[in-house]
């Protein structure tokens, strides 16, 4: 029963969120409560206890429980940002549908069914990316990026589907290659990352959270769900995943060196995802543990970066700012810097523990370890440049007024703060979590040890 609830509950509640979509706060509250209930259900599910649902084998392993939990928390952060920063009215409903897709991928022990669900999630995500507030003029660049994303996602899912089916009656190198290519396209690994940076550059800031915190985690969840059947016994699949991961770490970091701020963030996330792919490509327990730890800190860093960037870019009537975000909006700057440090694995934030585990997992592969280390150094340079451009450099004040500009808006009775109370609380929680994981890594390692076994 609880398996069925895990999938059906968010989908049913998305209907409720859609019905009250005209009242955005109520819709977001409904979706947030539904996500919290999903987390409770996930905590109560029996691990490694197979059952039958609709004639299909279902099981929740500790790894899929952890990844789905991280995805659900990311959904919560995205819902929070959709409540505070203007987004389309369908965002809560579609986000819940994506959570339902994640639950289906996590519990159904059927690779083809999971791939089909991911295909559906791609279509829903394209709708979500384009769901902007009413009367917002959508740029052609955003439309182009969304179309590119949709096509790449369908092609990725198709490659995976074909690869999985061609493995019958016996596995072949072509089938394995197709499977890993499908994973690489779905995760947005280099050189299949083409859709994500333009989306991050042109869409709402929260889209970075949707991509990094929900979509890419859904892809990772799919890899984890299929890992026992595909990766543990197949050396070619491991090598290909490590190759794509290594390429992503280096390629993502190198491209980030010369990109605009939003693209830089997306490319740094791609590099980080490359590390996760490298870790998933290791057939050892340490490799899996490091992958899970990297996933948790990836979601944490994404949430911090998205909230920080959104606060930094938020237009507040009456605020005239002449110096950089670092001095004008310190909370936004702290969130961005903490997110970047978590992403790069620099103490005292929580990213260094997973990297330490990864280095242990890669102790037998010095070339891959060297690639990852080089990629991290380049990523650190890109992050430094990002901090300079985004946080320290004074803002460029527009000399021409846009059509949406209204002088009346510039005459408030009191100047409001740039960070709503809810976002302040969320940022403090996230910062505390990152610091806690950095100062006491056992908080992460103890549950991971159980999951890895």
């Amino acid at each position, binding site marked *: 029963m609880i398996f069925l609830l895990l999938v059906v509950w968010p989908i049913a509640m998305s209907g409720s969120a859609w019905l009250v979509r005209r009242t955005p706060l109520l819709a977001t509250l409904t979706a947030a409560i539904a996500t919290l209930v999903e987390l409770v259900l996930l905590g109560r599910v029996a691990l490694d206890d197979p059952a039958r649902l609709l004639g299909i084998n279902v099981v929740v392993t500790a790894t899929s429980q952890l990844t789905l939990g991280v995805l659900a928390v990311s959904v919560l952060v995205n819902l929070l940002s959709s409540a505070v920063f203007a987004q389309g009215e369908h965002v809560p409903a579609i986000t819940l549908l994506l959570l339902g897709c994640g639950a289906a991928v996590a519990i159904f022990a059927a690779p083809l069914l999971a791939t089909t669900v991911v295909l559906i999630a791609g279509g829903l995500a394209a709708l979500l990316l384009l769901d902007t507030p009413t009367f917002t003029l959508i740029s052609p660049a955003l439309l182009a990026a969304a179309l590119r994303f949709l096509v790449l996602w369908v*092609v990725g899912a*198709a490659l995976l589907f074909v690869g999985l089916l061609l493995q019958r009656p016996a596995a072949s190198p072509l089938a394995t290659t197709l499977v890993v290519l499908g994973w690489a396209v779905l995760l947005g690994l280099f050189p299949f990352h083409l859709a994500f940076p333009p989306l991050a550059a042109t869409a709402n800031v929260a889209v970075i959270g949707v991509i990094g915190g929900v979509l890419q985690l859904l892809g990772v969840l799919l890899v984890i769900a299929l890992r026992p059947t595909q990766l543990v016994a197949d050396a070619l699949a491991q090598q290909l995943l490590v190759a794509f991961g290594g390429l992503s770490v280096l390629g993502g970091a190198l491209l980030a060196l010369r990109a605009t701020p939003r693209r830089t963030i997306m490319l740094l996330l791609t590099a980080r995802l490359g590390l996760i792919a490298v870790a998933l490509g290791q057939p050892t327990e340490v490799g899996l543990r490091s992958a899970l730890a990297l996933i948790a800190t990836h979601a944490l860093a994404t949430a911090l970066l998205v909230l920080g960037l959104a606060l930094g870019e938020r237009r507040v009537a009456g605020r005239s700012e002449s110096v950089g975000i670092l001095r004008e909006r310190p909370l936004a700057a702290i969130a961005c810097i903490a997110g970047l440090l978590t992403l790069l694995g620099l103490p005292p934030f929580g990213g260094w523990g997973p990297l330490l585990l990864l280095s242990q997992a890669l102790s037998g592969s010095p070339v891959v370890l060297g690639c990852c280390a080089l990629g991290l150094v380049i990523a650190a340079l890109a992050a430094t440049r990002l901090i300079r451009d985004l946080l320290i450099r004074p803002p460029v004040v527009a000399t021409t007024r846009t059509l949406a500009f209204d002088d009346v808006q510039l005459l408030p009775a009191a100047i409001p703060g740039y960070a709503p109370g809810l976002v302040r609380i969320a940022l403090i929680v996230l910062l505390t979590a990152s610091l806690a994981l950095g100062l006491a890594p056992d908080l992460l390692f103890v549950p991971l040890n159980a999951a890895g076994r």
Partner: protein
Amino acid sequence: MLESLALGLLAVAVVAMVLVRDWRPTVAWLLLAFAGAAGVLQQQPWAAPEVGNLLFAAEALTGLIVAGMLLITGLTFSRDYNVEDLDEFGLMELRRAARRAAHLDVPHRANDYVLPGVGLLVVLGGVALLPRLYAGPNGVELVDYTWTLLLLGGVLQLVISQNLLKIGGGLLLLALGLQMLYVARSAAVGLVVLALLDVAMLVLALTIAFLCGLLYGRLRTLDVGEVYRQGP
């Protein structure tokens, strides 16, 4: 016999979808492709008659809904200007644009069919070879030609299309091909997966319709090239 007929229908529909440049006939050919796929599904040896009929009905219904969505989208977002709302200067501009357009020899040039034609030859070669190279446990069956035709045809359609509705048609052909592949190669065909693939096609059609609406609202065209010209 009926399965061969369905495959023939499917082949005609895919070839026509690739060659036809206008989106209107594409929708009709897409519907025909769904009808062919439904016919192939119904004739599968593992499906009892009642299951076969159910699959046929489900596939035909999905095809009708998907084609209906694309048709309504196309008709809604390819309307001409409302002439009655234009002033005399607007009408003058419109007449001038019409005169210019009449002199442009855009449609039906032989060169426009070179790429689709060559692509179709490659696709047909692939359809003839791939099922033999990657034969299933029971050897080459008719349904193997179906999925190779749909998958390769879908990819070709994606590569050569400039119109958003035609790209949507390519994505739907790909999804239909996945369904046929599943039927052909799965050890035990699950109705849940088939149903979810139908849902995936509906979601894809919905997304394409939404994209068409946004694109037309912004640029007054469904030409994808225009999006990239006016892009970043």
